[in-house]
């Protein structure tokens, strides 16, 4: 089946003008072509199948928003191909627009002074959503997002959480198969975040909506994403699922075991001993080097095991390691083009 989002060797180069000081210099600047080239996106390729939820990560300035803008038709790539729902956002912007929903976390898409309901009605008119469809959509959104409570409140009076819910409803009103979310949970409290995530999982499960979300919130990743793309310095440095993410980052998995009695020393094996406190031992090991099973078996040779507790490395630290390039050698697995982890 054809992937619903395809990017091939996407490149985006900007020409940044020299900073101008003073009126005369500014006028001169209008006529000169000085500046330097900034390559925001440098040969990014990926394919996303319909019905997946994919996280798109990267430090600020890495090329995240530039990529998203090229996928949504806002920017035109300098070179490379992109297809969303089989269409080119560059050549068929308006057609692609019908098939996508976009939520910018920081800015609302709604009419500022009008009640939410009016915004939805206006969008319905824009997207050729019939009145009956609109009514049933509002009912559905009330069930899942509870927007009924503030349908008649002007958008500027909404709290951040309410506004985000309204924006999501607005983005999904025309039932697009693809949704782009830019930092959808930023600034929200814990409960609100959980509700948004629950909603996103729900529409993905029941309607197969493909979701591409950029975020800095690791919990978003953990709770939503089956796959993660990491971009840094304009290049894709990782493309795979969460497990591979942890493994490739070379972040150690940690096991804490409790023996019946203090174990025989020394505790040597394919691990680093983190702590030994009476009968409790904590070791850290590299999952790519040996399996958890091996480690537990080896540990069992030093005494009778009573209890085992395993914890995965924090996604936070995993991502950080990828950003800073501190990964295991050959960490860039699953990519069509090997990229440097600089």
């Amino acid at each position: 089946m054809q992937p619903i989002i395809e990017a091939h060797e996407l490149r985006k180069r900007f020409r940044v003008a020299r900073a101008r000081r003073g009126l005369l210099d500014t006028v001169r600047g209008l006529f000169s072509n000085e500046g330097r080239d900034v390559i925001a996106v440098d040969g990014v390729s990926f394919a996303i199948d319909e019905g997946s939820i994919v996280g798109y990560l990267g430090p600020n300035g890495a090329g995240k928003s530039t990529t998203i803008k090229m996928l949504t038709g806002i920017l035109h790539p300098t070179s490379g191909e992109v297809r969303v729902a089989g269409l080119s956002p560059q050549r068929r912007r308006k057609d692609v627009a019908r098939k996508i929903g976009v939520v910018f976390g920081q800015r609302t898409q709604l009419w500022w002074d009008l009640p939410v309901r009016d915004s939805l009605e206006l969008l319905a008119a824009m997207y050729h959503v019939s009145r009956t469809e609109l009514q049933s959509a509002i009912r559905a959104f009330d069930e899942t997002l509870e927007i009924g409570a503030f349908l008649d409140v002007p958008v500027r009076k909404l709290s951040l959480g309410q506004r985000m819910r309204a924006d999501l409803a607005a983005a999904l009103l025309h039932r697009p198969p693809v949704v782009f979310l830019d930092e959808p949970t930023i600034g929200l409290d814990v409960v609100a975040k959980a509700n948004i995530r629950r909603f996103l999982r729900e529409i993905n499960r029941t309607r197969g909506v493909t979701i591409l979300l950029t975020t800095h919130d690791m919990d978003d990743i953990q709770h939503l994403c089956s796959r993660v793309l990491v971009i840094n310095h304009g290049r894709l440095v990782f493309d795979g699922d969460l497990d591979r993410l942890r493994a490739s980052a070379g972040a150690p998995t940690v096991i804490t075991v409790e023996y019946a009695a203090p174990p025989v020393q020394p505790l040597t094996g394919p691990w680093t001993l983190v702590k030994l406190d009476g009968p409790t031992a904590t070791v850290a090991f590299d999952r790519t080097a040996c399996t958890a099973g091996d480690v537990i078996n080896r540990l069992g040779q030093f005494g009778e095991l009573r209890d085992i507790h395993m914890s995965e490395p924090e996604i936070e630290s995993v991502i950080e390691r990828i950003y800073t390039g501190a990964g295991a050698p050959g960490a860039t697995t699953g990519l069509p083009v090997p990229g440097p982890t600089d």
Partner: protein
Amino acid sequence: MAALRLYAQLVSASLRAQMQYKIDFIVSTFLDAIFQAVDFVLLAAIMLRFPEIAGWTLYEIGLLYGMSWIAMSLYRTFAPELHNFDRYIVQGNFDSLLIRPWPTLMVLLSRNLELRKIGGALQGALVFWFSASHLLRSGRLEWGEVAILIGLSVTGTLIPFALSLATAACSFWIVRSGDLQTFTMYAPITASQYPLSVFPGWLRALLSSVLPVAFINYVPVQYLLEKGGSAWSLVSPPVVSALCLIAAYSLWRLGERRYHSTGT
């Protein structure tokens, strides 16, 4: 047509929103009205002492005033977002226009209406009527000619609209196009309230070509009052309006292409 449905919805929604703040709406409309009224009253005061300006009487100038105000007010009513467009570029909100399945200009115009400005059009109509009825009675004008002028007032709205569109398009290059507006809109429109013959030749040429506000009112009125012009003077205004609109829209599309490429 879908665009009409969108607009009808926008008008009713805007009306409802404005009515929530009845007091503000009324006071603001009232103050706007005062300002406009003072403008014309001052003219009347001056013309009590100086009965003619370049051979034009108060009632004749009143026609110019009325038509200019109608055109400008209608434009301000329907295109406030265009008037303040550089805000979109400064705040990075142009993106939100690009993700809709419509031409960006349509999306922009559908964001807001400034219904209180319609008062300006009504006042313009009042001044126009005050002047026209006097000229009708004195035989300077006929009913058919007045009807033509009314029609041209409405098509004349396209000229400030086109000027605004071109100015807004400049923000794709220079960001703060609002500073340009004094030169491309406020000054020319003010000048268009008076007979163009008072201005030096170069300014007359400018206001008949690059900033063609002369075609909102002066060109047709001049002809119908037998002060100059030819039969073309009745045909050229809508033609010039259309040409301006096409030129301005082309500039807008050019700017849009630039935005796709540079992102700012």
